[in-house]
């Protein structure tokens, strides 16, 4: 799985950060927009009210005063006020300025009914500036027109400031979101690339590789640790499979070789029917032996991979039954057979595999004992759960080779002439492991004592 160059944009953390900043930007623009509209509305309304009040006042004055006095009043007000405070202009029916603080009727920028908006050039220190004026005109009796206005430049500036603040806030939110997303995305991407590189090596066959893990507990690291544990198990299983294949090849090649010899002998016997008969009997026996080996190997693999059905097994009945199966054989071999089975011991497991394991132990005990010996098969409860012990007075296994015989296909030199696949104890080991049992091989002085110690389970 290759990670493309612009993978950053596709990382979930980048997308998440981007989505969040878009949401935040929307929310803040809504909020600030509402504030802006409210403030702008109030400001505009205030100006209008102010102008309205003034217009109302002037109208009343006009009705009370004479025409000349009114003109004088306008003059007076105009002189009191700088144009930045209030704007007055009275024109006669011909449009000539009669009184006021602006020289002539302004060029209207925008008008709505009696309301209008225009720009006025105002002295600003030595400089001049364009100021927005909001004004209202009204007609006096006699054709005179009066204009009353207010400088709204400051208020316009305030509105503009609010608006740019709004844009700045939204921009900043987006910037922080994208920036944060890039930073987070790059971090995740770096880890993902490292994992991807490791995975590719694992896929190309290096099963011992592990994903890189840092010393933190974030989700990615926890996941990496779990995947590593899984890889560990896969490596173990694949190793086990390889070992099984190797031993299967070895265990089957040897009898195949004997099979071929026997077949050749039968072919070479010519007319001698007794010779060819003997050879063919050997062929049949070898096929049986191979089948036995194959079955044993398959069962070991089955037990090792743990993919078997489990049921509640009456261990007491199982050990009793196996003991009873082997007792006549032991007596036939001149052995004393003692079975001590505590009743009522059950565990969860595979009955066939458990029975075969105990049978293999009994089989070995009989096989490796000399007449006059004694075999004891015991099942009892112990501290951890239950324990099956098979003890004989036979040749035993030297302490330094006990671990070895549990592995596959180890038969000690002195026992090579005895029948069997040599996989008996391997199966016992695999079945023990499947049932979480601890397998112990001990010196019974003389002989061997094999203990399968089961852990008390949930059922």
């Amino acid at each position, binding site marked *: 799985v290759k990670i493309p160059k612009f993978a950053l944009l596709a990382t979930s953390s980048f997308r998440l950060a981007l989505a969040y900043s878009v949401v935040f930007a929307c929310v803040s623009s809504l909020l600030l927009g509402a504030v802006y509209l409210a403030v702008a509305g109030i400001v505009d309304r205030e100006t209008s009210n102010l102008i309205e009040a003034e217009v109302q006042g002037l109208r009343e004055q006009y009705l009370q005063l004479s025409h000349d006095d009114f003109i004088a009043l306008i003059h007076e007000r105009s002189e009191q006020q700088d144009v930045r405070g209030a704007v007055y202009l009275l024109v006669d029916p011909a449009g000539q300025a009669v009184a006021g603080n602006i020289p002539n009727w302004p060029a209207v920028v925008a008008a709505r009914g009696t309301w209008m908006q225009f720009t006025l050039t105002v002295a600003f220190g030595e400089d001049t500036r364009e100021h927005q004026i909001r004004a209202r005109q009204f007609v006096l009796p006699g054709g005179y027109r009066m204009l009353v206005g207010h400088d709204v430049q400051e208020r316009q500036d305030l509105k503009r400031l609010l608006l740019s603040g709004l844009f700045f806030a939204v921009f900043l939110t987006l910037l922080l979101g994208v920036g944060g997303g890039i930073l987070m995305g790059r971090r995740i991407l770096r880890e993902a690339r490292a994992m991807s590189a490791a995975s590719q090596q694992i896929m190309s066959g290096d099963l011992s590789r592990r994903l890189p893990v840092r010393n933190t507990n974030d989700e990615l690291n926890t996941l990496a640790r779990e995947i590593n544990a899984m890889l560990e198990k896969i490596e173990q299983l694949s190793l086990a499979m390889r070992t099984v294949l190797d031993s299967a090849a070895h265990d089957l090649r040897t009898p195949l070789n004997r099979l071929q010899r026997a077949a050749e002998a039968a072919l070479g016997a010519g007319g001698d029917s007794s010779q060819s008969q003997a050879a063919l009997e050997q062929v*049949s026996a070898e*096929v049986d032996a191979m*089948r*036995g080996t194959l*079955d044993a190997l*398959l*069962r070991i693999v*089955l037990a090792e991979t743990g993919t*078997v*059905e489990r049921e509640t097994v009456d261990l007491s009945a199982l050990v009793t*039954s196996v003991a*009873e*199966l*082997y007792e*006549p*054989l032991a007596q*036939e071999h001149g052995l004393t057979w003692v079975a001590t089975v505590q009743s009522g011991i059950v565990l969860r497991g*595979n009955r*066939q*595999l458990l*029975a*075969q394991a105990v*049978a*293999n132990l009994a*089989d070995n005990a*009989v*096989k490796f004992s000399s007449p006059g010996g004694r075999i004891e098969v015991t099942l009892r409860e112990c501290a951890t759960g239950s324990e099956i012990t098979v003890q004989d007075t036979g040749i035993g296994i030297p302490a330094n080779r006990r671990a070895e015989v549990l592995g596959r296909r180890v038969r000690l030199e002195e026992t090579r002439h005895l*029948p*069997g*696949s040599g996989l*008996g104890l391997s199966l016992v080991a695999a079945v023990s492991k499947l049932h979480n049992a601890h397998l112990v091989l001990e010196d019974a002085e003389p002989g061997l004592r094999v203990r399968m110690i089961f852990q008390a389970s949930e059922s």
Partner: protein
Amino acid sequence: MHILVVEDDSVAREYLAKALREAGHTVDGAANGVDGLHIATSQPIDLLIVDRMLPKLDGLTLIQSLRATGRKTPVLILSALGDVDDRITGLRAGGDDYLTKPYHIAELLARIDALIRRGDGSSADRKLRVADLELDRMTRRVTRGSKKIALTAREFQLLEFLMRHGGQVVTRTMLLESVWDYHFDPQTNVIDVHISRLRFAIDKGFDKPLLHTVRGAGYSLREDS
């Protein structure tokens, strides 16, 4: 008996058919599951031998389809899969017996006889009798002629199985499976010792032995030798 062999390996099928004909059966063959099912449902077949892995229709599906039509024809499954669980799956699918390849032809013939006989309903009888040997399943009493024979519980089971298949060949594996319920081969022939104990109990002191060893196959409980 009319036996249908459904097996895709033609060499194995022909060999098996030949052996079955020699044993006195009529044999039909099918090389795949579809043909097998067709023959099994269109002709009077007494017993089916079905390989588990077949082209077109696998063995287990064949058996399930056959059972779905209500036919109770005994089926013996042959399989290269020999695990404990595979066996259970095979029997659950409707098979009556399960044999792992490679097998001895004697083992197969013995199992076929047992399957055919099973249809007789003789297993329900209270008393089993072979020559002058009599076994009462209710009182668990065994007598030969006028002599009462004392047996252990396991020896009784062993004898009961042998008597139920009186005159037939019973293999060691069949005994292990039926009497002990063990589906594995012990490395040593433990059954032989049990049989010789049983033989000692029922044949000792009588002129005509009843329990015979069949070379290369197993045992048979019958009157003649």
